[in-house]
């Protein structure tokens, strides 16, 4: 398997394939003879070189027949799309997230629908919250892995050799990851919102308006995808999959856990803030109605907060990628 069938390398074999490669391009240039180049020669370098080959002065000793095109951000996006769809972790994490959102959302709705009686004036869409809450972990994991797996395997050095522009690599990764998770989350939250509102039709006195629908689907999806971006930024900062995932789990869970230990009156403000600004609480704000009397950020505010945090983290990730050795 390792050894190809080709005979032990006639020297011309490898590098002369390119001319066949680009029939569409400009007439294939014959490999230029470097001797023909203006030889800005250095004295005493004649020794050890191939006969008849005075080294050229510039880098243009060889000109590829493959047409040269300047790579753009779109090329990087295409590359990242190839990368993200060609590893199994993407399918696993997003697949489990969809299962969690749909499964738990459906389960909760059937349980509630099984109970007779009125559910009061809470939103039927809110039943999707628990699935999304668990699904967050999958999205965050994928966000971290999108970049930390490249550092873990050393692939990042290959990537940065192919594209020295760190900003472009980071932007393409963020864009592809964000759009992918946003679309997947939107589809699953949209589905579960419809299922839940159908199952609980007529059981609640509250009927969600357009803004409630928008927040429970688009809002939640944007929030979750942005949280994933934060994971990506943390992955780029820490360059270590397990470490970055642990940190992100801490970010999601720790404020709630910490608030349990903040008993005394002196700490009550801190405890309140920790709970109000914790990620599960902010996520629940997307499902909240007027009647829930949320004390923390409401409406679309959690999204703006998360966007700000992710933007800062991504800026840090960019600085880290440009400053630190890959």
């Amino acid at each position, binding site marked *: 398997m390792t050894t190809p069938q*080709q005979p032990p390398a006639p020297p011309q074999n*490898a590098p002369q394939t390119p001319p066949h490669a680009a029939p569409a391009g400009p007439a294939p240039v014959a490999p230029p003879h470097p001797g023909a180049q203006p030889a800005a020669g250095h004295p005493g370098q004649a020794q050890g070189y191939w006969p008849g080959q005075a080294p050229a002065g510039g880098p243009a000793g060889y000109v590829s027949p493959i047409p040269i095109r300047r*790579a753009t951000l779109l090329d990087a996006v295409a590359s990242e799309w190839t990368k993200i769809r060609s590893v199994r972790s993407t399918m696993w994490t997003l697949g489990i997230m969809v299962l969690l959102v749909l499964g738990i959302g459906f389960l909760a709705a059937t349980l509630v629908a099984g109970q007779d009686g009125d559910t009061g004036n809470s939103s039927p869409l809110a039943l999707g919250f628990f699935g999304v809450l668990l699904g967050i972990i999958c999205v965050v994991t994928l966000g971290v892995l999108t970049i930390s797996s490249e550092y873990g395997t050393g692939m990042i050095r290959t990537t940065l050799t192919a594209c020295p522009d760190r900003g472009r690599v980071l932007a393409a990764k963020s864009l592809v990851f964000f759009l992918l998770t946003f679309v997947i989350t939107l589809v699953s939250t949209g589905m579960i919102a419809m299922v839940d509102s159908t199952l609980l039709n007529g059981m609640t006195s509250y009927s969600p308006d357009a803004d409630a629908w928008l927040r429970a689907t688009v809002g939640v999806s944007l929030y979750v995808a942005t949280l994933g971006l934060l994971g990506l930024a943390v992955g780029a900062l820490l360059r270590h999959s397990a470490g970055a995932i642990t940190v992100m789990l801490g970010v999601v869970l720790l404020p709630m856990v910490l608030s349990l230990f903040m008993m005394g009156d002196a700490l009550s403000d801190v405890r309140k803030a920790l709970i109000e600004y914790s990620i599960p609480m902010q996520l629940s704000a997307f499902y909240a109605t007027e009647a829930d009397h949320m004390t923390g950020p409401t409406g679309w505010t959690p999204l703006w907060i998360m966007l700000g945090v992710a933007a800062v983290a991504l800026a840090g990730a960019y600085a880290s990628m440009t400053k630190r050795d890959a």
Partner: protein
Amino acid sequence: MIEAVGLTKRYGAKTAVHNLTFQVRPGAVTGFLGPNGSGKSTTMRMILGLDVPSAGRVTIGGQPFHKLPNAPRQVGALLDAKAVHGGRSARMHLLSLAQLSGIPARRVDEVLGVVGLQDVARKRSKGFSLGMGQRLGIAAALLGDPQVLLFDEPVNGLDPEGILWVRNLMRSLAAEGRTVFVSSHLMSEMALTADHLIVIGRGQLMADMSVKDFIAANSAGFARVRTPDGETEAREKLTAALVGAGAQVLPEQDGALRVTGLALPRISDIAHDVDTRLWELSPHQASLEEAYMRMTQGAVDYRSTQDQRSGLQAPPAQPGWQQPAAVPQGWAEQAYPVLPGEQPNPYAQPAPAPQAPAPAAPATPPTPPPTGPAPQGAPADLTKRDSEDAR
């Protein structure tokens, strides 16, 4: 053209690369040699802008790597065969790199064919052997059909056919006018591949010259002198006379003498004076391997020592000849037994002495391979490579 000026890289207190200044010119294979940990890979990473130099600069065609327009079309590199995501198939790996560089996807199948991986293109690279990984890395380097190519230890883990292929590939790439910069710790491999050598040790430049100059500057030629077998008296007499004339004489394993410091006619005259017949008087050029060992002797960071196995083995008492302790005496003679009905292994010839597994005894490697044409040198290189890797 790669140009480094005063290139320095420090990691905390440790200086990995110190004040390197060199040029790598197009149209030739430039070998980049140094012992393990001498800063070869760090230098390569700095050339590619992956590591930022602590001081100095390195440019490709006059510009730092990150400022190059269409960098992947100008520079291709194999840094580490394992620097791929193991869960991705070989083809997808190359496709993502091609897309990133704006290279048509057709090129992916071309380079897969060039390196001979088309049959496993859709397999996940996790299951690849080191040699297959090297081929995938070489494919990635060739993807952009660039004019500057960097290879870090490209023959590690390759089979003999693969080594020959890489060697020919490097030479043909250079013959097209490209700049080819190949790092290795295997002098013998470089002797067959490179036209020019840059040798570093402990991060400092030790040599920057053509292969021919390198040998001339770093190795003294010697003469092999052989007196008739069984006439130990004549041999000792000749040895004494040669030493008296200012030569250095080292006995070789098969009873011949290795004489340095005297010209061949002078040795013949001395033999005539002491009435000794000679069965052999031949000039020899020390191999590149020896020259390299001699040069980097003082700059080896990780030096292996002999496994003493104290108390388990009687020390082989052969005066003058340094028997490698790891290889028991008579190892070469006791070839593997030939089972009934089995052809004797044609390669198991007892003639060449086993290679010393450690570079601890660089001064007297048995039967130095001739530095001349490639085919004769190749088998000797393979054993050397294996013993090097085993360290």
